[in-house]
């Protein structure tokens, strides 16, 4: 396994593990046995759909509260609370499978049940398997009961969800205990009043209980309480149930005291006032599928404006058939699927004849499938990309201003791959009626991501959001997952935990336990933390499939912000890698078994663990559409819980200064120098401090650079216009022992050098002089690095920088390991540390340039493949003609200056930097993109690329 090695280069000795993860088996077993043997039925069980699929999303607490408070009138359907079976059934409930359940409520129900506070319903409730839950093969599955649940519509009841937080109770010890009903919910009930009323209302329901239970009539609402905020609780209503637990004046306080923490609670009221038809209709329209909720969650409240803004953009996806059936004369029969239905896309839809004709005609003329076409409509250039498969045509159109054509081509490839992963083939995805709404959600997210990538992470800080929005377009289509380098020890922990899980050796999964074949074999798993991949035991292709899926549903950013409390996804998948017998496997005589595959994703807070399961190979065959298996879900959950101890170490890694060191573009402009003082000391300076202690004293350094700058001035007096006044200031600053000033001065001199020479030959030689004397260990030499690692010299290690020379000139980088399906790039935190006005622009510029560079590389790789494919036949002529586009390296030098330069006399200072991409095909495919200051000697660039090998070996 290559993985543990991956980041060893950067990780050793950096992180201590403050909370060692429990590794002994008893501990592990105890976690598992709690999960296994507890009577608790999984919260998500009711959300399982008819086809066995599950998409269960539970919000984090903070998210829940904001959502609820922001939109008090509309109850977020995500947390729509409802129990399986209850007399107080929600009115006009939609179809069963679309409902969502509040999990923690159920836990309470369980607790209550145990405390026998729930005498009546608990008996009937049973396992709560939904009617949609199919009876899979009887095996080690815990619960398999299927139960038909009758939906009783009773108009007299209404459900109101309120947010309660017992931790915010007024904590006055003095006086009488405030009644929880008032303090927590905000409902005033005065028992003395209600005796008479209780007799009036609902006597018949309660009479069978034989106890004189006083009804909880609402006599008043406390201002500012959650009850009054809902606007749905009216005076005169009678509270009959809390989370479907029957309540009365006698037990209400006990029931409410069982609420452990902040959560949403469903109150059921008996009401004399009937709800207005319209509002209830509107309310329950919200109770749509989980996917819809996800979309809503990501779009947030302001979605209407956004929806409108996006609707104005001409964009479309269509699945067209090229075969026309003249028998059926249905309207628009060639359109098998279409999204969205808006005015702007209507125009694109109306010209589908162009798409069909072009596809057919160009294939006849040129002998190749159509890839793309460009249209001009509504004043916008719209790029349309095509995907033809047998006699069907998938078409996606987007404005060029949103997505460059080269990227759109990658996007359709990814869409096709994701759909095939989810549904097996495009036909099965698009041609089944029940998939239409799922696809609508799918493409809603797709266009949202394409047109306004930043919107998806509105929780994040502005700089992180900026970073996301300008990098998303590029990073989202890289054939890789964002990888976080971690210390060796932590990696070991993760790998061991994942291996344990994959072994499927735990008590009830062992075949001996029930004496039946196990249901699933775990093919592999991968673990994400805050959207970064931190452990992977999957083949590259599977990893990419899963990454594309979770990227598409924005699961990674959700986990990054802890907007999810719990996530359970289960679905059958069709991994291309296993289903398509490759030639290589034929050689070895190995054949993939005729098996079915299932994807299980469990997310808990920042962690997300994806597991690929196989059934039908060496395990028993799956019949029908098996739903998620509790035991597997629990085991995955247990693995995450087991690993939760490492999150502090990972956090530490995320908070740590960037490795390799990054610089901020603004530091290189004289204008920002004054501001620099007010910055909190940038990480680079502190690092330099560390190293200078151990290596060279600042003074020696200073003399060295003064020397070189003097020579510089002598050589080119005419060009040092911008630098001369810096020079006069320099010594003053440098005279102080302020290290910050020293570094600043160093920076200035360097700037001067680069300005005065502008890349002429002289600069190279001059730089060599300074470089030779430079005493910092050159981080490019892997030998050096290794030595550092072995010595565990953290001080030196902290100062690792990619560029040579006295100053770190690296701004940003992306390293894509095509073989492993991962890429490494600075984390959000690392980018956040570098604030400024120019730097965000630079980040944006870098990613846009990478788009362009990568599109050229992709052409090269395609050509290479083509060449390899028809090598042998007239090799020479082939070689001669196709070499032209085999670009291996591509770089662009950019120039920038401060935005608001007010000084009229002087031209604004400029800073120049390179964006360089390099493609390696041998020994293994790799792509590396760097952004660095102009002053770096080109030799150092060579070394930077060499280091890219070191990053991931």
């Amino acid at each position, binding site marked *: 396994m290559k993985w543990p090695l991956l980041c060893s280069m950067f990780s050793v000795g950096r992180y201590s593990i403050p909370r060692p993860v429990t590794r002994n088996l008893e501990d592990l077993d105890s976690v598992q046995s709690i999960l296994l043997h507890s009577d608790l039925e999984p919260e998500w069980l009711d959300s399982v759909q008819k086809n066995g699929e599950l998409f269960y999303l539970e919000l984090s607490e903070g998210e829940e509260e904001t959502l609820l408070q922001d939109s008090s009138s509309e109850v977020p359907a995500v947390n729509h609370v409802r129990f399986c079976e209850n007399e107080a059934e929600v009115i006009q409930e939609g179809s069963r499978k679309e409902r969502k359940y509040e999990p923690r409520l159920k836990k309470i129900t369980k607790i209550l049940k145990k405390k026998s506070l729930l005498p009546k319903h608990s008996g009937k409730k049973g396992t709560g398997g939904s009617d949609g839950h199919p009876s899979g093969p009887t095996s080690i599955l815990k619960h398999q009961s299927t139960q038909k649940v009758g939906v009783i519509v009773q108009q007299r009841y209404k459900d109101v969800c309120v947010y309660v937080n017992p931790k915010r109770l007024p904590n006055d010890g003095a006086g009488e205990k405030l009644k929880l009903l008032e303090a927590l919910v905000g409902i005033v009930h005065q028992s003395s009043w209600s005796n008479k009323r209780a007799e009036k209302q609902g006597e018949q329901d309660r009479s069978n209980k034989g106890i004189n239970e006083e009804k909880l009539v609402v006599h008043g609402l406390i201002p500012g309480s959650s009850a009054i905020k809902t606007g749905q609780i009216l005076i005169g209503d009678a509270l009959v149930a809390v989370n479907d637990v029957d309540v009365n004046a006698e037990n209400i306080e006990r029931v409410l005291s069982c609420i452990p923490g902040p959560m949403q609670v469903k109150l059921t009221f008996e009401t004399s006032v009937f709800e207005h038809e319209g509002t209830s209709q509107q309310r329950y329209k919200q109770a749509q599928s989980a996917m819809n909720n996800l979309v809503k969650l990501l779009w947030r409240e302001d979605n209407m404006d956004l929806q409108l803004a996006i609707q104005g953009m001409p964009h479309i996806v269509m699945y067209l058939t090229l075969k026309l059936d003249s028998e059926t004369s249905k309207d628009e029969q060639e359109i098998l699927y279409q999204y969205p239905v808006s005015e702007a896309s209507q125009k694109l839809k109306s*010209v589908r004849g162009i798409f069909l004709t072009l596809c057919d005609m160009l294939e006849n003329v040129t002998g190749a499938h159509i890839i793309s076409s460009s249209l*001009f409509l509504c004043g916008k250039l719209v790029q349309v990309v095509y995907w033809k498969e047998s006699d069907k045509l998938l078409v996606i159109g987007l404005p060029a201003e949103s997505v460059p054509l080269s990227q759109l081509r990658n996007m359709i490839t990814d869409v096709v791959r994701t759909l095939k992963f989810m549904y097996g083939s495009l036909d099965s995805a698009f041609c089944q009626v029940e998939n239409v709404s799922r696809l609508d959600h799918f493409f809603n997210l797709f266009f949202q991501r394409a047109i306004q990538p930043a919107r998806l992470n509105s929780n994040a800080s502005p700089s992180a959001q900026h970073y996301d929005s300008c990098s998303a377009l590029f990073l989202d289509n890289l054939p890789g997952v964002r990888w976080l380098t971690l210390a060796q020890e932590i990696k070991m922990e993760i790998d061991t935990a994942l291996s344990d899980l994959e072994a499927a050796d735990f008590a009830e999964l062992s075949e001996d336990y029930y004496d039946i074949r196990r249901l699933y074999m775990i093919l592999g798993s991968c673990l994400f933390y805050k959207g970064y991949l931190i452990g992977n035991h999957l083949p590259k292709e599977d990893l990419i499939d899963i990454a594309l899926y979770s990227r598409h549903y924005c699961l990674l950013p959700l986990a990054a912000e802890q907007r999810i409390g719990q996530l359970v996804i289960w679905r059958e998948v069709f991994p291309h890698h296993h289903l398509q017998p490759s030639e290589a496997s034929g050689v070895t005589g190995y054949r993939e078994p005729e098996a079915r595959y299932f994807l299980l994703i469990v997310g808990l807070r920042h962690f997300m663990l994806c597991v690929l399961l196989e059934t039908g190979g060496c395990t028993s065959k799956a019949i029908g559409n098996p739903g998620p298996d509790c035991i597997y879900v629990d085991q995955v959950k247990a693995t995450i819980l087991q690993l939760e101890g490492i999150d502090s170490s990972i956090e530490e890694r995320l908070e740590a200064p960037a490795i390799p060191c990054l610089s901020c573009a603004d530091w290189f402009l004289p204008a920002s120098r004054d501001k620099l003082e007010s910055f909190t000391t940038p990480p680079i300076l502190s690092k330099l401090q560390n190293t200078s202690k151990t290596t060279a004293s600042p003074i020696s350094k200073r003399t060295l650079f003064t020397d070189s700058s003097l020579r510089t001035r002598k050589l080119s007096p005419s060009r040092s216009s911008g630098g001369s006044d810096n020079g006069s200031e320099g010594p003053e600053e440098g005279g102080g022992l302020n290290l910050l000033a020293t570094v600043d001065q160093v920076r200035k001199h360097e700037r001067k050098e680069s300005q005065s020479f502008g890349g002429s030959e002289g600069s190279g030689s001059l730089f060599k002089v300074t470089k030779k004397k430079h005493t910092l260990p050159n981080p490019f030499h892997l030998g050096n690095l290794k030595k550092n690692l072995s010595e565990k010299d953290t001080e030196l290690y902290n100062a690792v920088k990619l560029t040579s020379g006295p100053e770190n000139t690296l701004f940003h980088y992306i390293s894509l390991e095509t073989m492993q399906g991962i890429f490494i790039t600075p984390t959000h935190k690392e980018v956040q540390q570098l604030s400024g006005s120019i730097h965000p622009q630079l980040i944006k510029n870098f990613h846009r340039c990478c788009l362009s560079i990568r599109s050229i590389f992709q052409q090269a790789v395609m050509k290479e493949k083509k060449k390899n494919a028809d090598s042998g036949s007239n090799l020479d002529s082939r070689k001669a003609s196709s070499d032209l*586009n085999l*670009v291996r390296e591509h*770089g662009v030098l950019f120039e920038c200056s401060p935005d608001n330069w007010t000084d009229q006399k002087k031209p604004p200072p400029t800073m120049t930097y390179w964006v360089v991409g390099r493609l390696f095909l041998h020994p293994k495919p790799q792509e590396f993109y760097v952004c660095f200051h102009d002053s770096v000697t080109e030799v150092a660039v060579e070394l930077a690329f060499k280091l890219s090998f070191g990053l991931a070996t």
Partner: protein
Amino acid sequence: MGEEGGSVTLLCLTASSGVPLFCRTTGAPSKHQLPFSVIGSLNGVHMFGANLDVLLTAACTANTHVVWRVFHNSITLIVLSAEEGASDFALGRLLDNTFSAMVLILGLEELVNIRNIERLKKDLRACYKLIDSFLAPLERSGDLTQCVECVPVPHGAALQEGLEAFVAAAESRFGCLVVGGRLALATEPWWQLAPQELLLLSWLVGSLPPPTARDYPIYLPHGSPTLVPRFWKPLLEPLQACVRPQPHGLPPGTTLPPGVLAFLLIHREQRSSQSSVQPPGSGGEGLSPRRRARALRHFYALVAARYFPWEGSPAPPQEPFQAGFPHRARHCYVVSATHKAYAIHAPQHQLFLLLAPHVPTFALRPLAARALQRLTGDAAC
């Protein structure tokens, strides 16, 4: 354009009726003639879209690029290019040049108000040579850069004097000296013509058979598309004879740094260019001149379409790719298996260099800077 691998087919139709006016093809002769049904449907899809206010501009398959363009609601030009490295940028320029060439020969009036299609077809034959030269530009680059290609001449002052005298004698203000398809000298008014006109004129002269005297009526697409400034060059031959052609297109005495296989220098303000695919010292190593020219054209199209500010016509219909960059691109390089290429965008000039693969990548930039300095003779560049 058309060579090595792909063919290029240029179709010209009337926009209103879809009658094919001509079809020019280069490259693979096997499928040089497209069947009429294909021509019809290529035009048909475009017309169908136009009726719905959707303008189809380009399409591409794995091996072919197609670009549509309508000029003055009257002439539709369609190009299919199976060339490697064909780009929307290069094909757009091709169509623009083609239409300008038609205007140059026939005048805009004739093309906008088509009275007799058969007559127009016959008249258009006069453009074939010029249009064909755009389809196969060989070692030239002016069609792509839309800059008039110049060649430095020795004894420039003396010749200039002769030219002025000759032009005055011919009762014209416009006069130029063309050497091997490239402009050597021109009178001051000549330079005031639009860059594309200058380009077209020198390409036109290059496309004509080599007689001693030329008297050719033209319409200037930009300056006076409907009037014919007629000029005479009866004494061109003796002048031409006294100029030794400079195959490497360098000012005398100038040398380029070693390793430079080809260069293209653009004077941005004047929209003039100098170029050579056989500069002295490059030797016969590596790529053939023809392939160097192709590589350089390809590199130019890439850089001009993506990074450097948009120059020349036509203005792109939508804001170009480079508008998305918050910062300005100044230099650019590409390293491929057979060559390296470097581009500089300086205040007055743009330089595109093709270099041998053995030149180290880190040396590209100083080398290019030196080349620019030597070519412009300006230390400030």
